[in-house]
């Protein structure tokens, strides 16, 4: 796939529908932005996975599986902080939940479902959920590079 973002792009704002058919394109967009931020290939894959999990949760829980909702995605290259990195913000206009109730589950309980938050917390250095005025949720995730261009999370 050819490069999506011109050189020097520091922020990207996208709006997609809550249709799972868009997930593959979003993963590629995030991979390319993460690569521009200086992450190695395995880290760009991991960041794409974390964003995919966040979008999946938005589609399933924010919009109850409906493909008709709007999802705003903001990708931003971080400069200076811990050697740089990437911030991802995902805003939906669907169902709200208490951020305190969003947590990883016990992985020793082998069953389908409930793994997305755990994956996001494993991959990203920061993860925050907020309720938005007027409805919906905002998820903010950050992953940092070290001073020498290597991610602190192996």
């Amino acid at each position: 796939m050819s490069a999506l973002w011109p050189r020097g792009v520091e922020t990207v704002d996208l709006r997609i529908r809550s249709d799972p058919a868009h997930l593959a394109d979003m993963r590629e967009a995030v991979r390319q932005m993460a690569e521009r931020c200086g992450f190695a290939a395995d880290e760009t894959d991991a960041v794409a996975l974390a964003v995919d999990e966040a979008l999946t949760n938005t589609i399933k829980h924010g919009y109850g599986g409906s493909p008709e909702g709007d999802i705003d995605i903001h990708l931003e290259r971080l400069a200076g902080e811990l050697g740089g990195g990437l911030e991802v913000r995902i805003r939906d206009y669907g169902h709200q939940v208490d951020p305190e109730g969003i947590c990883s589950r016990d992985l020793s309980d082998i069953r389908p479902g409930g793994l997305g938050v755990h994956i996001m917390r494993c991959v990203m250095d920061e993860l925050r959920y907020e309720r938005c005025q007027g409805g919906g949720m905002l998820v903010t995730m950050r992953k940092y590079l070290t001073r020498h261009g290597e991610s602190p999370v192996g």
Partner: protein
Amino acid sequence: MAAHADSIKSIERGETGTVVRLVGDIDLHRSHDVHQSLLDVCRERPNKLIVDLRDVAYMDSSGVGTLVEVFRQVNAYKGKLALVAPSARVKNLFQITKLDQFFRIFATPEEALGAD
């Protein structure tokens, strides 16, 4: 055997077991079809159900959840589930979710079919 969903490359039924070869990205967009296809195979109660992942480029927790559910279905009739050749990306997901110690993973379908 003809594939009957976009993510199912082939289904090969043999005396020792059934091998389902998946292809592409197994995410929320595709995992439902994969789930249904694998459950259809489970209804045949193969002694061994082998899910070949060598052509799976990407998987997320919805794909993993499908595999866990299929494991439960196969286990319910005392069959055995095995996975074959997950990519490094998929193996990493299994490690993050601690399922690398749960699934039986082999390098080839032949190894999986020949195992106890």
